[in-house]
């Protein structure tokens, strides 16, 4: 079930991004949709090859993730319907998470329902929160000077490093 949920999320994300690209100029449309198709194919390919017993192809899904996020960035650069693109990006993250989860569960015949339920709840909640905040952010409009932008960039970098340090195990 988790695998199908992951695939559904990815196909929905792909559909939304394709919808966003449908309003783009022809060259951007072909480029974006081409990248989209290639990324989805890579992802699906990795999923089926894993099933067929070639775990080394798993890395392809990482390329697929990169391609989908790249096409979302491209769509936002061309200002193609940001709400659609942000929703698609959230679905990509959700699909990626569920795909990883399905990978972890593969090979186990006995899986307690509570584990799946808890994971779906957490992932769904996190994706919904992320999407909600991003959509809220779309309504915020303010101008930043170069200095302030640089400061913000540095602050983001520093806080990320701090977060990762915090997450490091105590041992």
């Amino acid at each position: 079930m988790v695998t199908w949920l992951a695939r559904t999320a990815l196909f929905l994300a792909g559909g939304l991004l394709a919808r966003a690209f449908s309003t783009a100029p022809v060259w951007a449309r072909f480029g974006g949709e081409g990248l989209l198709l290639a990324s989805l194919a890579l992802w699906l390919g990795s999923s089926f090859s894993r099933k067929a017993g070639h775990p080394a192809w798993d890395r392809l899904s990482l390329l697929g993730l990169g391609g989908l996020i790249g096409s979302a960035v491209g769509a936002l650069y061309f200002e193609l319907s940001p709400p659609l693109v942000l929703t698609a990006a959230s679905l990509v993250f959700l699909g990626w998470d569920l795909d990883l989860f399905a990978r972890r569960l593969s090979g186990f015949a006995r899986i307690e329902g509570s584990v799946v339920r808890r994971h779906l709840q957490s992932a769904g909640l996190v994706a919904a929160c992320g999407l909600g905040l991003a959509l809220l952010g779309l309504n915020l409009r303010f101008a930043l000077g170069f200095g302030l932008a640089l400061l913000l960039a540095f602050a983001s970098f520093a806080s990320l490093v701090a977060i990762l340090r915090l997450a490091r195990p105590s041992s």
Partner: protein
Amino acid sequence: MREFRSLPLWATLILLLLAGGFLLRRGEILLLALPSLIYLIAGVWANSSVSAGPIKLVAKRELSDRQLPGHEEAVVRLEVRNEGSHRVSELRLRDRLPQGLTVVEGETGLVTSLGPGERAELEYRVTAARGRFVFTGVEAALADSLGLNLLELELPCPGELSFVPRFEELKEITIAPRRTRVYSGAVKARLGGAGVEFFGTREYHQGDELRRIDWNATARLGRLITAEFEQERVADVSLILDARARADVLAGGESLFEYAVEAAASLARYFIKEGNRVGLLSYGRFLDWTFPGYGRWQLVKLLEALTRVEKGDSVAFEGLENIPRRLFPPGSQLVLISRLLEGDIEVLRQLRAIYAVIVLSPDPLAFELARLPRRDRAVELAWRIERLKRELMLAQLREAGVRVIDWQVDQPLKGAVKRALLRPQLQRRLLQRQRGRAPW
């Protein structure tokens, strides 16, 4: 303990998006980083379940048996208890199964979540034809509810399980070694004295029991004659198991060698039960010698040796000529369990000059034929040629005075032993009848 963390991947993605947003001066791209940032923060928060507190998982294993006959089923129960103070949101357990064991029922893996004090149980049934299997531990992989922080560890819970070879109850194998030991047993010692079967007569000696006087002979000869009976004693029996890989036949996922091992177990059990002194030599990659002994404890030692025996090849032990004869007392009984290869006949002839030899030969042709997916004229012809070769080989052995038990492994061993011990005339008639009948 191994750890996998996908947090750096998310952090890199966020940094790239932020950098892209700032460089392209697009606020929307910055917003794209937001869902993954929330995901990252949630992952760091959820991290507490994996690495914030000490993880204390304790595993306990219970086995229904420590030793059981091959092909029977043993129940393995595994209990993993969370003795830490944190909930483990996602716990993947997989028991490390020793190679060669087959799971017949149940699962060896489980995905669950464990709160403090809670426990998870795994139960499954395993079987194997033969062997000693050592369980080391159970693999545990822990993850937080989002799976961003993963931890892999091995929980020790040792256990040991032995599948001893199956054996058949055998009856009345008459052996006639030239020498026996001093203790009374069931083997005819070729010596007159106290016994059951008439052996001969001799002059009366002072002190002979009155009931042993042969009155007919006394009346005929006019002097006192004493009847003698054949003494029955225990004997030295050495089992030689042919463990050469080149002598094995594999067909239909089965190995003829396993049948030979089971036959060796049946013989060991029979000869021990009869009170004999039994030793075992496994002749394959190397020589594995179980020193001869009597009684139940010796049977345990023999079965243990047969449990661990493995076939293998070595240049030194390619033929049977390197069987170390000094291990076997001269005149004792040798029992070779082998399918027999062409070069073995001469060696067996030589052994026959010193020992009483029985060859129990599992029939490789019948074994392979029964497991062939299809039979056609070519197979029939090949079977006939090989059959003739084998019969010639067995006839040569019989002529040399070796007692041969030709065993079709799909038939009970008991029947094959019984047939081989029939009187020679009956045996010849039976052999002729078998020759006339091809299995199709």
